[in-house]
């Protein structure tokens, strides 16, 4: 296949129709037709954004109280730039401190070596004192080398924490939901047994789950000290709340996908006398992947939405906590920063959704546009 075919296929699978007219234009296809495509997929959305920004500015001038004001697009942009500037400054400072500490560690180690050498030529009590001194110096050197900057997390750190939390939660949810879904899809008995649980727990809000997740984590961590554990407590509470909420779409869709595998495929499996595991891995799972991924996509979307609330309540240092802290601080920048993080949250959600669409299209053959 030529490059154009490949590029068009990529646009299709990646769910990026906006790129298609450009590819066709580059390939020298009918210009008028492609300009129409560009107008539809590029010019029109840009115009809509411009209109939205104008309306927003107008609103910012209107919604004003004594102490606060709806931030205008420019305020928001400035606040965002500041947040990133703060992040770079913090990183630079951390790096500087880290470097100083490293130099310190090297000097300490050199001193320790010198003292050890002295000790070799000395005798008796003096030798022991010198050796002890060398040990103390070495310990200090190790401490300096292992220095971790303990500054407050910046905006970017918080974004990274949020992403980590959502992925851990999503991974837990997937590991639970997919096997149970496959089981329910294959056995109507299993499905009948689990349906009441699914029906009842599916509509429960994350905020209701959170105290229970809290209880379980506290129980699991009882008897350990902070810093001893791989995951932070607040992090786990958020992640588990995310899992509990994002479990259901995957579970329901996997069940549906497995239960609705084409009878003809199963007939093929029966004629070939495939064993149970071969049926599962060669027929049932591949056939239900498109629906499963449709469920995973919804799950990740729900997870990302829930995460912000969970962060706020569990005090997990992610974007939710950032919004909450800003709201509590009430500086002049507060609302602009919150508006900026709203946009960032939206953009990350969009990105996650696109990734899932891309993955789903990769596993559905024949109809990438469906569902």
């Amino acid at each position: 296949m030529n490059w154009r075919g490949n590029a068009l296929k990529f646009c299709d699978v990646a769910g990026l129709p906006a790129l298609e007219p450009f590819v066709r234009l580059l390939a020298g296809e009918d210009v008028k037709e492609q300009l129409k495509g560009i107008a539809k997929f590029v010019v029109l959305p840009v115009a809509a954004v411009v209109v939205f920004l104008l309306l927003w500015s107008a609103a910012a001038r209107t919604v004003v109280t004594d102490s606060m004001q709806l931030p205008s697009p420019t305020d928001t942009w400035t606040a965002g730039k500041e947040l990133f500037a703060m992040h770079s400054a913090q990183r630079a400072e951390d790096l500087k401190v880290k470097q100083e500490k490293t130099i310190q560690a090297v000097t300490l180690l050199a001193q320790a070596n010198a003292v050890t050498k002295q000790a070799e030529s000395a005798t008796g009590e003096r030798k022991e004192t010198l050796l002890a001194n060398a040990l103390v110096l070495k310990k200090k050197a190790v401490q300096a080398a292992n220095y971790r900057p303990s500054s407050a997390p910046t905006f970017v750190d918080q974004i990274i924490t949020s992403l980590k939390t959502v992925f851990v939660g999503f991974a837990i949810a997937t590991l639970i939901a997919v096997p149970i879904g496959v089981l329910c899809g294959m056995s109507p008995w299993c499905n009948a047994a689990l349906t009441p649980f699914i029906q009842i727990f599916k509509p429960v809000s994350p905020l209701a789950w959170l105290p229970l997740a809290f209880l379980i984590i506290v129980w699991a961590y009882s008897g350990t000290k902070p810093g001893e554990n791989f995951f932070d407590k607040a992090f786990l509470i958020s992640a588990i709340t995310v899992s509990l909420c994002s479990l259901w779409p995957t579970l329901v869709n996997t069940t549906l996908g497995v239960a609705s595998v084409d009878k003809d495929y199963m007939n093929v499996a029966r004629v070939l006398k495939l064993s149970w595991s071969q049926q599962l891995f060669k027929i049932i799972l591949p056939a239900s992947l498109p629906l499963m991924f449709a469920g995973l996509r919804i799950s990740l979307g729900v997870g990302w939405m829930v995460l912000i609330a969970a962060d706020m309540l569990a005090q997990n240092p992610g974007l939710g906590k950032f919004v909450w802290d800003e709201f509590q601080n009430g500086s002049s920048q507060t609302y602009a920063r919150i508006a900026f993080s709203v946009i960032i949250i939206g953009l990350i959600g969009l990105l996650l959704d696109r990734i899932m669409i891309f993955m789903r299209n990769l596993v559905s053959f024949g109809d990438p546009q469906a569902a």
Partner: protein
Amino acid sequence: MSVAVLDRPRSKAIARPAPPEPLISMRSVSKGYGSGVTRNEVLSNINLNLRKGEFLAIVGFSGSGKTTLTKLLAGLEMPDSGEIVMDNEVIKGPSQERGIVFQNYSLLPWLTVRGNIALSVDRVFKHWSRGERRDHVEKFIEMVGLSHAVHRRPHELSGGMRQRVSLARTLAMKPNVLLLDEPLSALDALTRSVLQEEILKIWEEERQTCLLITNDVDEAILLADRIVPLNPGPNASLGPAFSVELERPRDKTALNHNETFKGLRNAVTNYLVAVRQKSRDDEALASEASPIELPELQPRSLRVPRGRAG
């Protein structure tokens, strides 16, 4: 006497060939779906012998239970009464001995052409080496003329190509019996005709026992040795067999002017039409036999009784 000296073989050994033995026999098989009031009898009292090495065609209208018949033969469905015997053993489930080609191809969309065929080959010839299996797959891809498309997935193929893959997949299993369940009825007329000739060619090479289910009388005559009409359901049963006395190899274009072909086509078609007409008449008769008696009502007055108006 010289007779006593010669050690002659038994006369039985040089006797004229006996009629081919039935490979599969259906003995008074019935099948229906549902229960109680919603019970729907599809096939009743089916008796059929499929002889070794013959090409048998079953012709019937759509909805007369043709697919149920194939499913029974394949072992995907069990008969309600009667039994189906293959090689003196009652069929109790699907088997690789009976390869089936489905009407809607049933190709796995996530596998390529090669992958689809290899799935069967790897399963049926487990004991072969990897190389042997690969060569086997290639051979059958070539047989159906798809060597240029081995890496394509089913959705990138035309209907005719898909059915070729499906055919190659089943043939590659080397089954004793080939069951073709309306393999060509989803295709357009031109593709259909090309594939008919290809099936004919392949069959004449392999001479495998084959059962074709179809709704196309011409197709049946072109391919088969014997044609058995399926009377329309419910309670479908088999009609009398028509023997196709046409020389092989057959040529589709030449057949169009062949008197035997024309005569047979008329005979089979007339039989089917007559049977359907009879079944319709029977149905009409049955519905006339017990008409619901409606009570005769007549209004005495059209006026609203006084005091009740509004």
